[in-house]
C-alpha cells in the first residue's frame, strides 16, 4: 500500500505550522511532541501506522474554520479524525498532514423530543446519544459494535451501520442535518430538524464521504422510540448452506427482523470461550434473529421464524425468555472481534456485501482461500443485509503473514464483487480497499466521483490518498473534449 510522497517542504516548515496552530488553538489542543503523537499513529486498522505532522484538537467551529483557512492558504493537508476506531485506515496520519481531531467536540447541544431529534457535536460517542434520550424511552438506531467508542461524526463520515440497520437503516437514513467546514474555512449548514435538505442532497453526499469533502462540526440525528419489546432466537445449523437458506427464507416470507446476524464455527467457538453466552458448540453456523415491536407482533413473528428455521434444517433453537437472556445471546456476537483478537495476535476485518443467496457460496470460497493461504479465518456477518465480516487471523511478527493476509482479504473482496456484491458495506474504503476500487468502478466512474471532490476541495488537501487509487489534478479532471458536428444520429427518432 503506497501513500502519496510526503511533501518535504511542508515537513521543513513544521515549527512554523505548529506555531500557527498554537495561535489558533491555545493550551493543550496542539500536540507536537513525538511521544504524544504516537497515540494518533493509526486508527482501528492497526496494520498501517505513521506519525502525523502535528495533531490539533480544536474546540469550536470557528477554530476549525481558521485552521482550514490557514491550511488552504499554505497548501497543508489535513486528516480529519473522530475516535480513531475506523477499520479502513480513513484516519491514517500522513507525515506532511495535520491530523485534525474532533475529540473535544463532545457536547450534546439539544434534545428535542417533540421533533424527535438530537443535535450533537461530532465527537460525541454513538452510545452517548442513546444514553441522552433513553430516560424518555428513545434511542438512536444505528448501533455499530464500536458504539461505546466511535464518534457520531465518524459515523456520518463512514455511513456506519449496526445490527439494527436491517430494519432501521444506516447512518444516512438517520441524519437530518449537519454543519461542516470546507477546506477554505467556509462554514456550511445542511438540513436541520426538517426532512430533506432541499437542493442537491449534500447531506447524503457527505454521509460516507470518509473525511474527503468537509469537516463535520455538528450533527442532527433522528431519535426513535424504543420498541415495546424485543426477543431473540438463537438458531444453530449443521451447515452454512442451511443457515444461508434460513436467512433467505425469512426475508422471502416478508419478515424484516430487527437484526439478523450469523457466525460460523470458528467465530462461535472464539466468542463462546470469551463471554460464555451459552452458544451450542456442535453446530456449523449460528444465527441470532431478533424480532422487535409490539408484544403481539413479536410473539406472532417468533413463531413464524421458528417454523422457517425448522423447515430449513435448524439443529438447535432457543428463544430468549427474558431481556437479560436476549442480551446474553447478543453478548457473544457483540464481542466477536475482541474474542477473535484473543485467539490470534492480529486479525484483519473484511467488510464486503453480497446478495444474500450467495452466502453459502462465498463462505465456501473463503474456506478454500483460507487453505490456499494457510491462514485461519472466522466469519461474522450482518446476514440480513448480506454484509460479511471475515476476520483473517495472522501474526504481524511474521513478516510475510501481513502480506498474505492482505492478499487473502483482497481475494475475498474481489469474489464479493464477482458474485454481484460490493467492496465495503460499512467500514469504508480508506486506504485498505483503495487499490481495489477498479474492481467495481471504471476509470470514468471514479473520475466522476473525484470531480465531486474537486467541487468541495479543489486543492485536494482534505484527506488525500484515501479512497481513490489515483490522484488526478482537478484541472485535468475538469478538462473536456467536445466534438462539434451535425446531429450524428440518423437512427434516433426525432419529432
Amino acid at each position, binding site marked *: 500500500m503506497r501513500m502519496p510522497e510526503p511533501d518535504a517542504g511542508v515537513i521543513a516548515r513544521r515549527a512554523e505550522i505548529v506555531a500557527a496552530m498554537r495561535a489558533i488553538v491555545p493550551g493543550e489542543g496542539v500536540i507536537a511532541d513525538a511521544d504524544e503523537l504516537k497515540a494518533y499513529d493509526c486508527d482501528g486498522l492497526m496494520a498501517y501506522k505513521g506519525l502525523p505532522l502535528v495533531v490539533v484538537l480544536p474546540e469550536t467551529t470557528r477554530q476549525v474554520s481558521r485552521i482550514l483557512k490557514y491550511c488552504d492558504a499554505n497548501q497543508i493537508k489535513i486528516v480529519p479524525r473522530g475516535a480513531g476506531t475506523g477499520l479502513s485506515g480513513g484516519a491514517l496520519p500522513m507525515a506532511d498532514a495535520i491530523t485534525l481531531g474532533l475529540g473535544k467536540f463532545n457536547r450534546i447541544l439539544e434534545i428535542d423530543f417533540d421533533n424527535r431529534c438530537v443535535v450533537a457535536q461530532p465527537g460525541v460517542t454513538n452510545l452517548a446519544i442513546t444514553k441522552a434520550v433513553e430516560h424518555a*424511552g428513545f434511542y438512536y438506531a444505528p448501533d455499530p459494535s464500536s458504539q461505546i467508542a466511535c464518534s457520531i461524526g465518524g459515523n456520518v463520515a463512514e455511513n456506519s451501520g449496526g445490527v439494527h440497520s436491517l430494519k432501521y437503516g444506516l447512518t444516512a437514513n438517520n441524519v437530518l442535518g449537519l454543519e461542516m467546514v470546507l477546506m477554505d474555512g467556509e*462554514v456550511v449548514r445542511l438540513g436541520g430538524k426538517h426532512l*430533506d435538505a432541499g437542493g442537491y442532497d449534500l447531506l447524503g453526499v457527505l454521509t460516507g*464521504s470518509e473525511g*474527503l469533502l468537509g469537516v463535520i462540526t455538528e450533527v442532527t440525528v433522528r431519535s426513535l422510540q424504543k420498541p415495546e419489546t424485543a426477543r431473540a432466537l438463537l438458531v444453530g445449523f449443521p451447515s452454512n448452506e442451511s443457515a444461508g437458506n434460513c436467512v433467505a427464507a425469512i426475508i422471502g416470507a416478508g419478515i424484516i427482523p430487527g437484526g439478523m446476524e450469523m457466525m460460523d464455527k470458528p467465530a462461535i467457538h472464539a466468542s463462546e470461550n470469551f463471554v460464555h453466552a451459552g452458544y451450542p458448540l456442535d453446530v456449523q453456523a449460528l444465527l441470532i434473529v431478533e424480532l422487535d415491536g*409490539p408484544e403481539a407482533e413479536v410473539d*406472532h413473528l417468533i413463531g413464524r421464524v421458528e417454523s422457517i428455521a425448522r423447515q430449513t434444517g435448524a439443529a438447535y433453537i432457543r428463544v430468549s425468555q427474558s431481556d437479560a437472556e436476549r442480551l446474553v445471546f447478543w453478548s457473544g456476537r457483540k464481542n466477536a472481534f475482541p474474542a477473535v483478537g484473543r485467539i490470534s495476535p492480529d486479525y484483519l476485518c473484511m467488510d464486503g456485501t453480497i446478495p444474500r443467496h450467495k452466502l453459502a457460496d462465498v463462505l465456501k470460497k473463503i474456506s478454500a482461500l483460507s487453505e490456499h493461504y494457510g491462514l485461519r479465518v472466522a466469519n461474522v456477518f450482518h446476514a440480513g443485509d448480506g454484509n460479511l465480516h471475515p476476520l483473517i487471523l495472522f501474526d504481524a511478527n511474521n513478516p510475510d503473514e501481513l502480506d498474505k493476509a492482505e492478499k487473502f482479504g483482497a481475494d475475498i473482496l474481489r469474489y464479493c464483487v464477482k458474485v454481484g456484491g460490493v467492496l465495503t458495506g460499512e467500514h469504508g474504503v480508506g486506504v485498505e480497499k483503495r487499490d481495489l476500487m477498479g474492481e467495481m468502478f471504471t476509470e470514468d*466512474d*471514479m473520475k466522476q466521483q473525484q470531480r465531486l471532490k474537486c467541487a468541495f476541495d479543489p486543492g485536494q488537501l482534505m484527506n488525500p490518498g484515501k479512497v481513490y487509487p489515483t490522484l488526478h489534478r482537478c484541472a485535468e479532471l475538469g478538462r473536456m473534449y467536445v466534438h462539434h458536428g451535425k446531429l450524428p444520429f440518423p437512427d434516433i427518432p426525432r419529432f
Partner: protein
Amino acid sequence: MTETLKPKDAAQVLEAVKWAAGEGTPLEILGRGSKRGFGRAVEPGLGLDLSGLSGIGRYEPNELFMTAFAATPMAEIEAALRQNNQQMAFEPADLGPLFGGDEDRGSIGGAIACNLAGPRRVKVGAARDHFLGFSAVSGRGEVFKSGGTVVKNVTGFDLSKLLAGSFGTLAVMTEVTFKVLPAPEKTRTVLVLGLPDAAAAMTMARALGSAHEVSSAAHLPKAAAGRSQVSYVAGAGRAVTAIRVEGPGPSVEHRCRALKELLKGKGEIEELHSENSQALWREIRDATLLGSANGDPGGRQVWRLSVPPMAGPGAAEALARDLAGEALYDWGGGLVWLAIAARPDAGHEKVRAAVAAAGGHATLVRAADEVRARVPVFEPQAARLGQLTARIKQAFDPKGVLNPGRMYEGV
C-alpha cells in the same frame, strides 16, 4: 414547437448528450413528462424523451431489489411488485393530478430525479433512501455508474444520493436500481376528529413518539377533509387527524387499540380499515385534497414546505391567513402543502420568511409558467452553498446542457 429526440437505448442517449454538449444545445430531459411543470420555467431546450428506455430489467424479490430502465412507468413497477406482495416503501407521490394531468403517468426515473416521497417518509425515508444504484450519462457525455444492488454499500461517494432530487440537472439516468420491501399485511388508520392545527401537531407528535410504530401521521383541516372520497373523512364535517399503522394482522390490531387509548380524550375517534385507509393515504400522498389544477376553480398556487414538525402549524396558519390560502399537513406536521390564491409573486417573500423563521425549505410546486420563471421555485441558497451547487453542476455538466436552470438560475 420544439423538437424532441427519442433515443431507444443508453448508447443513443450518450450520442445525443455528446452532441448537445458539443453544440451547447440545452436538453430537456423527459421521463414520461408527468412532472414537466415541476421546477423553474425555462426556455425549453431540445427534448430528450427517454420513454424508449423502459422495462423492468432484474427483479429479485428475495434480494429486495429491482433494476429498471429509467422511464419504466411506475404503474408497471407497482403491478410487478404487487404480484409478490412487495412495494416501494417510500410510497412516491403521484403528482400528475396536482399538475392537472392523469393519474399513474410517472416514471421511476422521474420519481427518483424529483426525490419523491409519501406519507411514510417519516418512518422509511424518501426516494433517496431507497435508491441503490444507477447507470447514467453525464453532461460531459460520459457513461458512469455508482452504487450496486445491495443495501449496505459505502464504496466511494454516494452519487445515488446526489442524483436523487437533482431534477435531471447533473446526468441522464438510463437505468436505476432501488430497494423493494414486503407490503404490509394489514393497514388501519386511527382518526381523531375536530382538532385545531396546533393541537393536531401535538397529537401527531404523541403518536409518532410512541412505541406503536406509526407509519404516517397527517392532519386535514376541515376544507381539505371535506374533499376526501372516503365518506368517514368527508362526512366528519370538521378537521381530521389521521394516524396510520401497518404490519402483520395481530400487531396492527393491538397497536390500533393502544393508539386509541393513548389519544383518548383528544377528540372523537374513528378507525379506517384497509381499503378506506389506502384511499385516504393516496389522497394525502398526492396532495389531491387541495383540489387538482383542473378541478380547482381558483387555479390556486401550491407550495410545499418542509419544516420541523412542531413548527408546521405556526408557519402555515400565518401564511394561510396572509395569502388567502389553506394548508394540509403530512409527516406529523413537518410537511405542509399550502394552496394559496394565485398571485404574480406567489407570495414567495412571505413564504420564505416563514420558513426561515421555522427552519426548513419551501418549494413552489404548482404555479403558472410565467410565475415559475420569475419566482425562485426552490429554496434560495446561502452564498457558499450556492457556489458549491454551481461547482457540482460544473463537475457533472460543464456545458450546462442538462435541464439548465430547472433548479436554480445558471445551474
